[in-house]
């Protein structure tokens, strides 16, 4: 049971990441490979404020989200000059830069050793110290993220995003300042990713740079492509499947290191098979 709760918490965290990335990739058509960077910014901001300054988790979470949003605004200004595969490449570049800051800014992030001893969240004296209460907290945040995403994509703002995805030039001709739309959704996506990062830091209580690599970004891309681009339901389905799928490998009885690599190989294989046979994913409404 404890194990199932653990998996459910991981699924919740990845579901938020999937929702966040789907707004950018699925609804707006911008293939961002920098998701792990914002995930990491949220996690590091939370960890540092909690461990270093003893702040409350929820305030640290908000600060982390605002910080990720500001950084996303700056990065988004540069990224908005590109589209298609150049966008993917440039965002990958930012992903690597942010990762190398986590890894090399020893004075702030403690480098490759990471930050241990992050306290569990605490709200008005109630500590989410056991995993079941943490799961409830995570589910609340998934519902919040889902509600925000649904509101965004169903609003007139969301319709402009889809128009940008289908034809940016034409959307501009109709008088929409597409730059503002692309920046806004990128910032919203980054803030949701930072939220997931805070939850991760608060749950695992230890973070190091290895969670926030390019491979991490590829994993989240795999989630939304498997579940389906431009489908919020798809993000949830993708997170459930991709978190559970490799757990079966564990039962087959491979040693830990092999199992970890096997998991990577499975994600890679899934991406290829999806591209070959079902590029819109399971319930997607848009294909790359």
């Amino acid at each position, binding site marked *: 049971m404890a194990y199932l709760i653990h998996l459910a918490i991981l699924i919740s965290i990845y579901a938020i990441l999937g929702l966040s990335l789907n707004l950018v990739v699925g609804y707006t058509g911008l293939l961002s490979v920098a998701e792990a960077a914002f995930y990491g910014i949220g996690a590091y901001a939370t960890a540092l404020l909690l461990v270093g300054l003893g702040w409350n988790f929820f305030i640290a979470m908000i600060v982390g989200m605002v910080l990720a949003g500001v950084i996303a605004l700056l990065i988004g200004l540069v990224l908005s000059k590109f589209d298609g595969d150049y966008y993917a*490449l440039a965002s990958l*570049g930012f992903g690597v830069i942010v990762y190398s800051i986590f890894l090399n800014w020893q004075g702030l992030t403690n480098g490759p050793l990471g930050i241990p001893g992050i306290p569990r969240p605490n709200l008005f004296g109630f500590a989410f110290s056991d995993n079941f209460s943490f799961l409830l907290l995570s589910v609340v945040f998934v519902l919040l993220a889902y509600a925000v995403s649904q509101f965004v994509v169903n609003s007139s703002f969301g319709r402009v995003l889809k128009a940008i995805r289908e034809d940016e030039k034409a959307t501009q001709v109709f008088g929409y300042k597409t730059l503002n739309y692309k920046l806004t959704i990128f910032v919203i996506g980054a803030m949701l990713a930072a939220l997931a990062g805070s939850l991760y830091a608060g749950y695992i209580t230890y973070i190091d740079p290895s969670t926030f690599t390019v491979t991490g970004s590829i994993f989240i891309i795999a989630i939304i492509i498997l579940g389906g681009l431009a489908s919020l339901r798809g993000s949830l389905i993708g997170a459930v499947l991709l978190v559970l799928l490799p757990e079966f490998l564990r039962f087959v009885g491979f040693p830990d290191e092999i199992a970890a*690599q*096997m998991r*990577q190989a499975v994600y890679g294989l899934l991406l*290829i098979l999806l*591209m*070959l046979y079902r590029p819109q994913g399971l319930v997607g409404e848009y294909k*790359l």
Partner: protein
Amino acid sequence: MSVIPQLVVNSLIAAGTYALIAIGFNLIYGATKFFNMAHGVMAAIGGYTVFFLMTTYAGTNVIIAAILGVLVAGAIGWGLDRIIYRPLRKRRASNMVLLVASLGAFTIIQAVIAMIFTSQFQTLSGAASEKVYAIFGASITETQVIILASAVLVFVLLSLFLKVTMFGKQVRAVSDDEEVAWIAGINTEKIIGWIFFIGSAIAGLGGVLIGFDTGLQPTMGLNLLLKGVIAAIVGGIGSIPGAILGALLLGFAENFGIWKISGEWKDAIAFGLLILFLIFRPKGIIKS
């Protein structure tokens, strides 16, 4: 003693390795117009093939092992095209689909290498003691001389090959316009298969040499890919001389960039250069 000569030598060596990746990348991009994210991992395949031969069959001739390493990398590159990219091209899949599929291929190959050879750092050693040469107060090892010579040789031979042979003309025709080349009676799929073989083999050569110079790690492919792509874009995407120019600029920028600051920031400098070029000169030094 001045450090300038050593910085220049280091820059040239770095440029040599980047060029070996960028040349193949540009060759493949020229013909297929997609960012092949699995290109860097071809270098790891080359290096690890040599490592495998020299550890399992003690006393294997270094030259023979190196040639086999290059051929295996080429063959796997060809195989990926055959199994994944060709069917996608046939379906007129977008560049993004090809990019995501190649990300999948990259993830699988990297994981498989780590499963077979562990994630540990490995070194290739040829001669018992390596000769070190001194020029203008800077030192350079024999392997590093071979890296420089290989980069120059590959560039000259490939340029000549593309210019004078019938096959080279067909390659250029495919790069100009695949459809027209096909109508003119060129077996474009066969030519693209060869392009993948040659490009991957050159990357494999790079991987073998890097194995002898600094060592091997399963994750080396991503870093090499990123540097190769940066060199390719900065120099001029799809252009072979551009790959050389871009590699030189990147090698010098990185090594002079870390003159006064810590060496870990090389990656950040490289991506800084990429982003500057993407903003101000997106077509690179040589516009093709």
